[in-house]
């Protein structure tokens, strides 16, 4: 069952198409890494899911609620950590906790105290005096302590040092493992997404250029290095994403049908043929490096 479904979700700002015909279906219990370069439309998508911005076209359903008309209900079942702080700087840590606790009937006091201890947050300190890392930790605490069915995290660890980021992700993953929550994790940090996500979607210029199971994408997207005896351009019957290189050496990027492409290449009797696994970062560059554009509306 899908907890987030978007249908042709689009957002236009003047002449700029921020999000274009986004079709997503995120299944319950998954950790979905929503990747994209800065300005690709990730935060706009997140805000549309939460009902903070209205779509120019299309629709989004979160936990069965329409994001345009039932954002209040979405808010009662979702935990949200925004890219930029949304905490009241004048409140103390404890007052911030009390505020959200008063709004969320499902608030779990013992879990909140557990997180407070793990993060070593000084409960009497004002938010404005906390370091950025502590502010992010407090935001995560406020999002997780109501034990929401769905966590939506928008660049949650941006600005954190590597140690704080590790701690942050560990707490997140522990919580998810314990409760089976669904997580929508927007980021441009490949390492952290690789660590936590089981499914991914890559957004580029507002378009979803790839989505699916991370392992499946890794399995399908490969690079093949081929060294041919002749220097003629490489012509393939099978569809490939890209052919690079010159002289005898070619790098072929494949996104599906690896076995067929390998068979075709072997039939050409190359001097060398090698298949390389790609990191998520390589895959990201392949998909987000193109010039995907929205169709004119």
């Amino acid at each position, binding site marked *: 069952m899908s907890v987030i479904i978007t249908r042709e979700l689009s957002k236009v700002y003047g002449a700029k198409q921020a999000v274009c015909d986004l079709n997503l279906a995120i299944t319950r219990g998954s950790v979905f890494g929503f990747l994209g370069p800065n300005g690709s439309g990730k935060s706009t998508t997140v805000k549309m899911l939460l009902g903070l911005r209205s779509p120019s076209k299309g629709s989004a359903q979160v936990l069965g609620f329409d994001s345009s008309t039932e954002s209040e209900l979405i808010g*009662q079942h979702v935990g*949200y950590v925004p890219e930029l702080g949304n905490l009241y700087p004048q409140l103390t840590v404890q007052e911030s906790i009390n*505020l959200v606790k008063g709004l*969320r009937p499902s608030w779990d006091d013992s879990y909140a105290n557990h997180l407070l201890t793990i993060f070593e947050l000084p409960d009497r300190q004002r938010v404005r005096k906390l370091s950025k890392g502590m502010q992010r930790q407090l935001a995560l605490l406020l999002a997780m302590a109501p034990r929401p069915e769905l966590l939506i995290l928008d660049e949650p660890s941006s600005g954190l040092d590597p140690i704080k980021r590790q701690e942050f992700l560990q707490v997140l993953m522990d919580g998810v493992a314990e409760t089976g929550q669904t997580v929508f994790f927007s980021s441009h940090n490949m390492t952290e997404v690789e660590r936590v996500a089981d499914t991914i979607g890559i957004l580029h210029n507002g378009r979803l250029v790839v989505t699916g199971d991370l392992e499946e994408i890794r399995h399908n997207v490969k690079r093949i290095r081929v060294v041919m005896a002749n220097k003629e351009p490489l012509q393939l019957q099978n569809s490939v994403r890209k052919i690079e290189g010159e002289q005898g050496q070619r790098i072929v990027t494949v996104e599906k049908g690896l076995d067929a492409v390998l068979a075709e290449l072997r039939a050409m009797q190359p001097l060398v043929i090698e298949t390389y696994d790609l990191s998520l970062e390589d895959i990201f560059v392949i998909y987000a490096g193109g010039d995907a554009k929205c169709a004119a509306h």
Partner: protein
Amino acid sequence: MCRTLIGKELRDIKWKLFVAFLVLVASIVLMIILHERLLELLPADMSEIPFFISPDMFNNFRDFTNAMWSNLNDQNLPQIGSLLAIILGIGLLAPEIESGTITLLLTNGISRQRVFWTKSILAVGALILLLVVVGILVVPLSSAFGYSLRHFRIIPATLVAALGIAFVFSVSLLISLILKERIWSGIVSAVVFALWSILGFWEATRVFSPFYHMRARDYFYGDANFPWLAVVGFIAATIAVLLVAERRFAREEL
């Protein structure tokens, strides 16, 4: 209304209200203390008063009850009250939208409508209560210094002023939701009401000035009944402007 939000809002506005209360009470106490001294300074003969002091003002100085009304309802409430209303109006939602803190409320299960009306009703209620309490305090404060008022129309007149100031609040809130920036919203609101108050200078146009109605002058002097029309007008105008502001906030892209 949301109890948690009420607590947070009261916390946010309490110092503004407290300072305004102190300033208004201090102005009343000062006026009471200085009343005798001012009388001594006034010339005995009206022909000796400077041209810029009208006979009404001259008489207001001489009569304690009139002097209190002149000080409070004719001057301090419209001025200090409006300033407070503008500060509360521009500080209600625009800074939260600007800083993004509003999303903490909206993504934790409160609707925009509930946020808007909880905040607005609380601010308007606190504003009216504060001003009416100040109006009532004139009686015991006067007694404490050995004066007594000839009549107590100053209290209902203060209610009219408070409702007018609630209208100033609602317009400032709407301006802040349009401009989405606190400083400019404050400047624009102040300019709008300063220009609007100019209409009160001439008899032909003063009916169009909210400040003229806020003073309830004719009622205070016994020349007219209680200004129910102004009361209903202020309440209706405040609700109308708040409804427009709520629509604006409901459509706001956060």
